[in-house]
């Protein structure tokens, strides 16, 4: 986005970009990963996705009616929030979980702050943290791929408890043949969508690159068998790291504005993710890391904003 901000005198060309266009494009780019999730986990996953989106749209509409604001369902942001929330849930959860989560995301994560563009925290992640704190039992029971609904641990949680029985090949991890949340398992699908977003210029490389690079280095340094022995590729392909780095951390509203700020923000996300994964109580730290950096984003913006030319020292 950065290099497109060119200030010039009139006449200007009208660009066809709009909030709605971007939101629907991001939703479209998430399609392959979601399709893979449904392929691996069956119709239960599809039901979670549909309920989550429907609840998000409904609560957005109701809240905007109640506060007498213009209803903005067609801008796609509530749709995207519902979709992202569903992607962060285990496939077998009871269907009231995505419903309550989506209501929380829209009401507390977004509308309380004044609606689209004003929220501090990523609504979908705030809702996930809320669900995790409220109903941990449902939120941590995963199932193995396939239609038989066999419960299984995710690669990260198995590793946390110290027994990784099944050996995952990198290909399995990459294609999504593993237990996990609906949208995070298929790294290939996520990357395909991310390439589309990068090429269209809807996201820039700064945050994902800083995020993945920091996380990779940290995982390599603090391996299980001493320093500089970590299986960094395994960690990068497991859990919600790729989904978080490309789709959640890059949310325009909740991330810093300048390139420098975005690099700091991405590195902070990576650092916190790995710290929580390796030493924290939870197997996966992506959600909390991004939320914490969301809280820090205004501060990063404050100290990394460009000074106005000719005004002397930055205030």
């Amino acid at each position: 986005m950065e290099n497109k901000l060119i200030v010039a005198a009139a006449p200007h060309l009208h660009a066809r970009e709009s909030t709605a266009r971007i939101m629907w494009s991001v939703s479209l780019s998430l399609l392959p990963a979601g399709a893979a999730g449904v392929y691996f986990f069956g119709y239960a996953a599809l039901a979670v996705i549909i309920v989550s989106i429907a609840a998000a749209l409904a609560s957005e509409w109701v809240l905007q009616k109640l506060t007498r604001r213009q209803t903005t369902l067609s801008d796609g942001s509530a749709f995207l929030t519902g979709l992202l929330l569903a992607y962060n849930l285990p496939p077998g959860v009871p269907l009231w979980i995505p419903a309550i989560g989506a209501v929380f995301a829209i009401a507390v994560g977004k509308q309380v702050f004044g609606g689209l563009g004003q929220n501090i925290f990523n609504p979908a992640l705030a809702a996930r943290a809320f669900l995790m704190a409220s109903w941990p039992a449902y939120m941590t029971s995963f199932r193995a791929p396939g239609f038989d609904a066999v419960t299984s641990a995710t690669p990260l949680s198995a590793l946390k408890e110290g027994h990784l029985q099944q050996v995952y090949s990198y290909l399995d991890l990459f294609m999504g043949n593993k237990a996990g949340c609906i949208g995070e398992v298929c790294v290939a699908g996520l990357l395909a969508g991310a390439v589309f977003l990068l090429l269209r210029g809807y996201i820039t490389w700064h945050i994902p690159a800083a995020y993945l690079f920091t996380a990779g280095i940290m995982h390599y340094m603090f391996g299980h068998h001493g320093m500089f022995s970590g299986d960094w590729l395994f960690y990068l392909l497991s859990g919600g790291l790729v989904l978080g780095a490309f789709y959640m951390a890059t949310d325009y509203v909740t991330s810093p504005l300048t390139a420098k700020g975005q690099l700091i923000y991405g590195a902070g996300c990576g650092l916190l993710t790995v710290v929580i994964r390796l030493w924290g109580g939870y197997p996966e730290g992506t959600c909390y890391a991004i939320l914490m950096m969301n809280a820090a984003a205004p501060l990063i913006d404050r100290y990394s904003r460009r000074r106005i030319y000719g005004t002397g020292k930055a205030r």
Partner: protein
Amino acid sequence: MKLPAEFLKGIIRQNPIFVLALGLCPVLAVSTSVSNALGMGAAATFVLVGSNCIISLIKNVVPDKIRIPCFIVVIATFVTIAELVMRAYSPALNRALGIYVPLIVVNCMVLGRAEAFASRRPFLGSLADGLGMGAGFTLGLALISSIRELLGAGKLLGYTLFPGFKPALMMALPPGALLVIGMMLGFFNLLKGRKE
């Protein structure tokens, strides 16, 4: 002002929690269950009434410059009494409330009433004010804690109300406390806005 009015204003119109937003730390910390909240409300009311009375009696003796330290000593004395009584007769409650009992000393509500009211009003008025503020504080605490206990544990005063209900644990944790108080303050603002 008449005594009943002094008493009643603390309960609704100048409720220390929802309207004045005073003394929130214990409110958030101990409102995980209704019984804890009632214990805290009783202790705070005792301190509030006691300190209001004494301060109103000694207000003409105390030099103006050192009045705040004097008030703090009076308040701390009552807090110590409350602490010792609680430890002797209800050790379980004392453990549950933990450091929040000694912290009544620095509760802005108690010092605020001493400074703003008791130090310039007669004895009976201060007594009524202390009782009213204490009652308002206890009621507010009871309200918040019932919401949190109901949503966070599915219980009220320890009894399960809806057997099939899956409680949202977060409401019993610190973020839940902050969320509930934020929502309630917003709700009271909304009511105030409607009235005007």
